[in-house]
């Protein structure tokens, strides 16, 4: 069953309206170490694990865009911790099929014998809701006080969980489990207001349970939509909402109309204070805002290059850095000479997002064509 192609549709036509980031943050409050262990419910996952339903489309070479998987799995939150402005969430679901991406290659990661759950970490700035992709956490597992190994999860994109770090892991047995999640200082360019937020620190989560119980969390079928172009909506639970990028029209700077390539949506704008964004030098900053076509998820670990021309003359050409800012969210940018209305910006996607993909995303964000914008 191959997904049927649909002619190019405007971004967002298939996305359910998510709960706003600021609603989440309001709910989170400011108390330190707000542990929400045991917070249940909500929907997650997207067609991994123990799918009872029909075969899903076989992974292609990309270029087909995202498609709706057969079902979504329930998830369980282990906890949410806050340290200063940084918020880390740990949750799990049934072991999931996913695809590692290297360059434009995808490889399906097999679910190993003994895997008991898909463990997921999300890290964000609790004040702005911004997620820095380059924090690559390490999780050390302890059972009844005894170290039982460590995991360094992959950055991943899931239709219902968005950007997270995840892996299938094999801890087993009822016990008092502790998960020490060490979040690294973020790679990439950080706005000055975020420089002290995405620093290295460790969050500890504790839970009495049997990891095997992940198999009992259940799932919900996607019904007739399975295989169609489009996506599942972001999951929503009482205490946790999936981090999303600001909508293009909600950015603090003016940007061009967004354009699409293989379900990557991109728009371009300029910022007049490159130093505040964390760039060295320059009279302006070129900002290429990117997000998934549906659900407004961030697209980290991508390689972009931009060329700016004015009246046929090249004004700027160079690689863009992965960057985060409280207002812009995650974007790609560079310090540039002053830019003017009418400048033409060609954006080349040299390397597609090197994040692993849950089912339904392994066909998207891979065959990326250059896009040209006019400021």
């Amino acid at each position, binding site marked *: 069953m191959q997904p049927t192609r649909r002619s190019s549709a405007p971004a967002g036509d298939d996305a359910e309206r998510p709960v706003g980031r600021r609603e989440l943050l309001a709910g989170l409050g400011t108390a330190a170490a707000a542990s929400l262990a045991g917070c249940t419910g909500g929907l997650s996952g997207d067609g991994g694990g123990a799918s009872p339903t029909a075969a899903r489309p076989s992974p292609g070479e990309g270029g087909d865009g995202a498609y709706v998987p057969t079902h979504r799995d329930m998830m369980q939150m282990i906890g949410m911790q806050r340290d200063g402005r940084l918020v880390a969430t740990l949750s799990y679901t049934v072991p999931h099929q996913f695809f590692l991406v*290297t360059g434009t290659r995808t490889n399906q990661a097999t679910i*190993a014998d003994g895997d008991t759950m898909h463990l997921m970490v999300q890290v964000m700035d609790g004040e702005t809701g911004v997620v820095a992709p380059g924090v690559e956490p390490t999780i050390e597992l302890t059972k009844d006080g005894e170290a039982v190994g460590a995991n360094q999860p992959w*950055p991943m994109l899931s239709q219902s969980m968005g950007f997270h770090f995840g892996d299938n892991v094999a801890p087993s047995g009822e016990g008092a489990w502790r998960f020490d999640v060490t979040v690294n*200082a973020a790679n990439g360019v950080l706005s000055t207001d975020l420089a002290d937020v995405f620093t290295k620190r460790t969050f500890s989560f504790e839970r009495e349970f049997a990891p095997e119980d992940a198999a009992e969390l259940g799932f919900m079928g996607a019904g007739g939509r399975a295989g169609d172009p489009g996506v599942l909506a972001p999951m929503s639970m009482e205490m946790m909402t999936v981090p999303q990028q600001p909508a293009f029209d909600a950015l603090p700077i003016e940007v061009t109309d967004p354009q699409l390539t293989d379900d990557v949506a991109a728009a371009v704008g300029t910022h007049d204070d490159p130093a505040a964004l964390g760039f060295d030098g320059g009279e302006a900053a070129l900002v290429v805002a990117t997000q998934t076509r549906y659900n407004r998820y961030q697209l980290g670990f991508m390689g972009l290059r931009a060329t700016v021309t004015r009246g046929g003359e090249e004004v700027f050409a160079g690689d863009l850095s992965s960057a985060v800012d409280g207002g812009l969210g995650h974007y790609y940018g560079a310090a540039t000479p002053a830019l003017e209305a009418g400048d033409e910006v060609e954006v080349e996607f040299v390397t597609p997002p090197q994040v692993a993909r849950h089912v339904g995303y392994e066909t998207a964000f891979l065959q990326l064509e250059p896009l040209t914008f006019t400021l």
Partner: protein
Amino acid sequence: MKAVVAVGGATALSACLDRTGGSTVPTGVSDLSSLPTGQHHWNAHLSRDEHENVENARHHVLRFLDYPGDEPSDADRETVEAALRTLERAYAWSNEGVLFTLGYSPAYFRRFDEGPAGVDLPPPAPLADFEDPELERYDAVLHLASDNADALVEAEEAMLGDRADANGDAVEARLSDVFEAEDTYPARRTGFVGGGLPAQFAKEVADVPDDAVPEDSPLFMGFKSGFRANQASESRVTIDEGPFAGGTTQHVSALDLNLKPWYTQDDEWQRVAKMFAPTHAEEGLVEGIGANLGADSAMDRALDPLEAARTFGVVGHSQKMLSARRDDEPVILRRDFDTTDGGDAGLHFLAVQETIEDFVTTRRAMNGADIAADTPIGQRLNNGILQYLRTTRRGNFLLPPRRHRALPAADP
């Protein structure tokens, strides 16, 4: 041969000797002048493959030691020297006999007014932003190596246990007469390297997928390493001035290996790209464990790491190491080996180099932080093999030349 070395001790040894009836191990010499100046001069006494790559001894033991006294006494020095001469008499200085080094840490030299003369021996430190290793505080480390697991355990028992003879010679002095030596991890570490051993020992640990490690691989990650062109020469790593001239420095780290993603989530293309270079994967340069590469890893055919990262979204481990060369020669000599210490797959990354700074430079090249800053690769993601490693311990040691190996003063 279930983990004779890993179990260790008199029990493992007697079980082993009972089974084999005692094999013939070549004996050593009593004339020190016939042995090399440097304790680390092993290469001429190890075996080589058909490409003249030196093959490390197949079995290894590390014993971390503490010296309870303040400044060492001459009597203790004599005991240590006598103990080590016992080993040299009993076993040939070769992979068929027993090779060994005795190294001293910055903690050891703190008992003197100054550090070792002419040698910069810094305390160990984390070498990447994302690692939090335990930093060794032991005074000394004994490294024993042999192709013969029985001889290795016997030598260890002679030095730090209660074995009365070594390869038929009476043991007249032991290191344990002078040093305190615990016999469990982390004070005792063991390991192996060489074709067949990783696949064999993988069966003993739960965290390596069944049948994942190639039968002929010398290391858990499935590829050959230690290509002649990728190893510093012994002369390059030898200290050439001062009282410790003829010696070298040693870095010993313990790494957890996470082989499940390596073998069940990556494919062969990704493994070759991440270990060597993405163009090696594209061009199919690596067959199986890479023995076809000969005496070098064909890095002349790899792209500049930045270009590889931009073009392929991945940079190879070997590819990054090129930047750590000086005069187009590596600056460290790897003598690392795999382990199942603690019941999980790991690697004891042991290397010798003229200065610890040479090791730091090499490890920083492996981090690829400058590449990660400018390309889609992460601090670990698609950044060589960093995703699969976790450094849990680091220690720095001075391996004095043989003449100063027994509890040296800071300026002997």
